[in-house]
């Protein structure tokens, strides 16, 4: 689990550049393609709508002409009726029933003639006189009774403006004849004596809505609808039969909007769909002709949005795959480089970078590698310089035989001579001679274990001669170790330490020197059963208050540094001590034959 958790961020870490680059590219491609697709669709829609509205406004003009020609027929017919003396007589004079029968008959003959003007349309003519006489050609489609007609809004409006021919919508529930759908547009006009200005009746041309519908029904189709609205906003004719007679106020606002500006068409949301709306004003009818085209049906088929979108998606996907592979290739070399560089410090700068892939990464790798080379060179030089400095230091220290030691030893020898101990004197002088010879004279860095032990013995001998034999020293050296090489004065500082500090409280004791071989290691131990030291800091070397060593310049402290300098990290000195029980110094060294 933990492994995994660390594994993923690691992968991400090295692919960071790729991820950022890839996602930016993805976003860009998607943005660009969406924008272009959308713009293309918009533009082509605009184009189609424009074309569409041009053809449709032509159609609307044709329809308008049909309206005008109907109006003209109605005007001619109404003029004929107006100029008829017979009709005026019937409508103004009080007649007997028999006379009325006669008048009705001639009126019917006249109507037949007048109606021939209107033969092209299904039109019923009703004439109503002020004297209460009504005449109708038929009332199949407009079954209004005489009483209803007298009281109707249509009559009222007509008589209010007696000079105008006006068109009004009317709906009657057709119970008697059951013909038509009851929707009629009534052209009405007051019958007025133009000279006297006296109104003697009114006339009505009931035009079945389906007649009006014929003008445009061939142009309509599902989604392409025509509405004729009167000035109050009522739909008086439409191929959408259900809507006839309904109010459509929003159309009126479109109408005023379209009248004011020069737009040929507007696009509005109507009946839950986006519609292209064209408008023509029919002045003689005082009505508005609307052509409402469902945008979806009009141009939805022309532009296959789905296909365009699918193609775009396809292109985007292909582009993404290419971008993915290409950028992956580019960034891979870079991230590999990064990975190698990041780990370089872990491997002591020994790990070189592969100089592969692209030119840039090759150059970077190259530069890093040569940098590493130089770094190595510097480090090597530094190490060498330090070693030399250290050696010089040690050599200097080694040469410094404490004058006090010589003075004390020589003083001891003087007393031996005075006491007459000739043999003792000779042995002591011999020990001093070989000790000085080995420390000063022998300048080679390492000595054999045997030589080191000889020196040690001489040193111990001299000290025992001076201070007595209360501290015993034993040597346990494995036979096979005698010829191994060890640094000079390796053990002397520890011996000195034990001798002069280990037995401050205890009156006597012993110091054991042990040398043996363990595997590839040579182990030397200096063990005493003296006072011991306080503290659990096993590896810490004891703090000596004296700055000066008693014998040479090399102290306990230097030994460890020296060993590590010569042999490397794994080797060195460990010290363990217990208060009252003694101190044990153990030295690890590699085995080196000369």
């Amino acid at each position: 689990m933990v492994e995994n958790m660390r594994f993923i961020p690691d992968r991400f870490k090295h692919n960071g550049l790729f991820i950022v680059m890839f996602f930016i590219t993805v976003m860009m491609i998607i943005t660009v393609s969406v924008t272009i697709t959308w713009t293309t669709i918009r533009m082509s829609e605009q184009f189609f709508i424009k074309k569409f509205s041009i053809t449709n406004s032509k159609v609307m003009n044709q329809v308008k002409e049909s309206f005008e020609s109907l109006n003209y027929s109605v005007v001619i017919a109404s003029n004929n009726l107006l100029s008829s003396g017979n009709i005026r007589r019937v409508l103004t004079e009080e007649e007997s029933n028999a006379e009325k029968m006669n008048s009705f008959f001639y009126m019917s003959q006249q109507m037949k003639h007048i109606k021939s003007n209107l033969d092209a349309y299904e039109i019923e003519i009703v004439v109503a006189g002020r004297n209460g006489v009504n005449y109708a050609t038929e009332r199949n489609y407009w079954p209004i009774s005489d009483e209803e007609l007298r009281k109707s809004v249509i009559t009222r409006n007509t008589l209010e403006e007696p000079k105008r021919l006006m068109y009004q919508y009317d709906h009657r529930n057709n119970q008697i004849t059951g013909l038509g759908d009851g929707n009629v547009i009534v052209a009405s006009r007051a019958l007025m004596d133009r000279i006297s200005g006296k109104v003697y009746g009114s006339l009505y041309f009931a035009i079945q809505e389906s007649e009006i519908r014929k003008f445009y029904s061939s142009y309509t189709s599902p989604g392409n609808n025509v509405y004729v609205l009167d000035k109050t906003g009522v739909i008086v004719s439409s191929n959408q039969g259900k809507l006839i007679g309904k109010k459509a106020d929003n159309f009126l606002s479109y109408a005023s909007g379209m009248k004011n500006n020069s737009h040929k068409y507007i696009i509005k949301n109507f009946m839950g769909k986006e519609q292209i709306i064209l408008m023509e004003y029919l002045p003689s009818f005082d009505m508005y002709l609307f052509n409402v085209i469902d945008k979806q049906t009009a141009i939805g088929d022309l532009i296959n949005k789905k296909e365009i979108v699918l193609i775009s998606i396809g292109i985007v996907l292909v582009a993404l795959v290419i971008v993915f592979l290409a950028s992956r290739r580019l960034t891979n070399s870079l991230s590999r480089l990064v990975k190698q560089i990041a780990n370089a410090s872990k491997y002591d700068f020994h790990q070189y970078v592969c100089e592969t892939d692209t030119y840039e990464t090759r150059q970077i790798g190259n530069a890093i590698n040569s940098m590493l080379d130089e770094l190595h060179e510097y480090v090597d030089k530094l190490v060498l310089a330090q070693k030399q400095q250290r050696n010089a230091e040690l050599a200097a220290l080694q040469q410094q035989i404490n004058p006090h030691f010589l003075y004390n030893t020589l003083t001891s020898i003087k007393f031996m001579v005075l006491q007459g101990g000739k043999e003792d004197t000779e042995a002591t002088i011999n020990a001093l001679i070989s000790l000085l010879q080995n420390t000063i004279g022998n300048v080679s860095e390492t000595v054999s274990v045997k030589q080191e032990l000889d020196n040690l013995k001489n040193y111990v001998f001299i000290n025992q001669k001076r201070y007595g034999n209360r501290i015993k020293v034993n040597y346990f050296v494995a036979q096979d170790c005698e010829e191994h090489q060890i640094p000079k004065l390796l053990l002397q500082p520890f011996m000195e330490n034990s001798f002069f500090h280990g037995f401050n409280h205890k009156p006597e004791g012993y110091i054991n020197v042990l040398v043996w071989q363990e595997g590839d290691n040579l182990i030397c131990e200096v063990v005493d059963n003296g006072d011991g030291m306080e503290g659990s800091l096993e590896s810490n070397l004891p703090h000596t208050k004296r700055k000066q060593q008693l014998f040479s310049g090399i102290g306990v402290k230097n030994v460890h540094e020296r060993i590590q300098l010569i042999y490397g990290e794994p080797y060195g000195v460990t010290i363990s001590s217990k208060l009252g029980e003694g101190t044990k110094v153990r030295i690890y060294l590699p085995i080196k034959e000369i």
Partner: protein
Amino acid sequence: MKKVLALFLVSILLLSACSSGSKEKANSGNAKDTKEITVWAWDPNFNIKAMNLAKEAYKSENPDLKIKIVENAQADIVQKLNTSLSSGTTKGLPNIVLIEDYRAQSFLKAYPDMFQELTGSFKAADFAPYKLAPTSLDGKNYGLPFDTGVTGLYVRTDYLEKAGYKVADLKDIDWKKYIEIGKKVKEATGKQMLTLDPKDLGLIRMMIQTSGSWYLKKDGVTPDIAGNAALKEAFKTYKEILDADLVKPVSDWSQFVAGFNSGDVATVPTGNWITPSIKSEASQAGKWAVVAMPKQTGINGSVNASNLGGSSWYVLNIPGKEKAMDFLAKTFGSNVDFYQTLNKEMGAIGTYKPAAEGEAYKAADEFFGGQKIISDFASWTEQIPQVNYGMHTYAIEDIIAVGMQDYLKGKDIDKVLADAQKQAEEQIK
């Protein structure tokens, strides 16, 4: 990382591939077989309704046949038939069409091969004989008789009572008696006897058919105006009615209906199909009765029964005719139960004689004071004299209507009829 991305991309590709491949729709099921027949008729309250009932009744016979009923104005049907049949195309024509009896001969004679002969598909003897003449040509049946235009005299019993008459006093009268009663009624109530439209001579037609006479001779072609005693008598009666001021003039159908609905007239002499209109004024329930049509005064063989309007079904000689014939034969041609339904649902009276035995025909109508009017109409139907309406009923009527005005203004009757005869002969040759 790579795998996840690759999976993502692949799945998108797959998805888009899937979504584009599911837009196929089976577009089969074209009705090339004539499983459908079309019917043209006018008047949704009567003819269309009757046809719908027939369609229901036929479902048990042949549920697979689709019957499409199209409503058209009568004038449109006439126009469309004339245009299509004269151009020889049968495209867009219906299988069954309703034609008014007065016009039937003109169609049958003009396009004899376009109509399917129905002889033998129904029993002609079961139908009122007067319906057979207009629907047949050269002894072959082409039309299946539908509604009867049998006439009656609808009278306001309350007005009559005011003038001292009972319904029984009006039974089997002649027009002379009618005028006499009319004068009394007017005196007593101030109401006119009847409404008349000067351009519609339906009253004249009803009168002359009681005497077995028509505008044309038996051959259906030669005008029979000058020297037509029945027509002359009808003219005289018409003038007498007007002179007695028994008429309320009307100019169209709605004024006609308003005339009796508003109580302005005491009688309505017309076809039985007016019954629903009379009953539509519910406040007059119980005030109406129906008596037989007055017969002509002084004409031998004139009976108290006549006809006005009425139409019949015709099958056009186009694919699907067998199915159309079968449909008509099994409904209007022979189904007594169907006629009972027809009568119960809409008060229609057929010309199928066996149907008169049914229960519905014997029902009493409370609106007419418990009179069994259907039964009465059915019995009058059988008495209607058979005439040949011929080809030119309406053309001649236009001429006669002008003559009538001349006559009313004082022109000599014989001269009027002779002039009309001459004009008719010139016009319809």
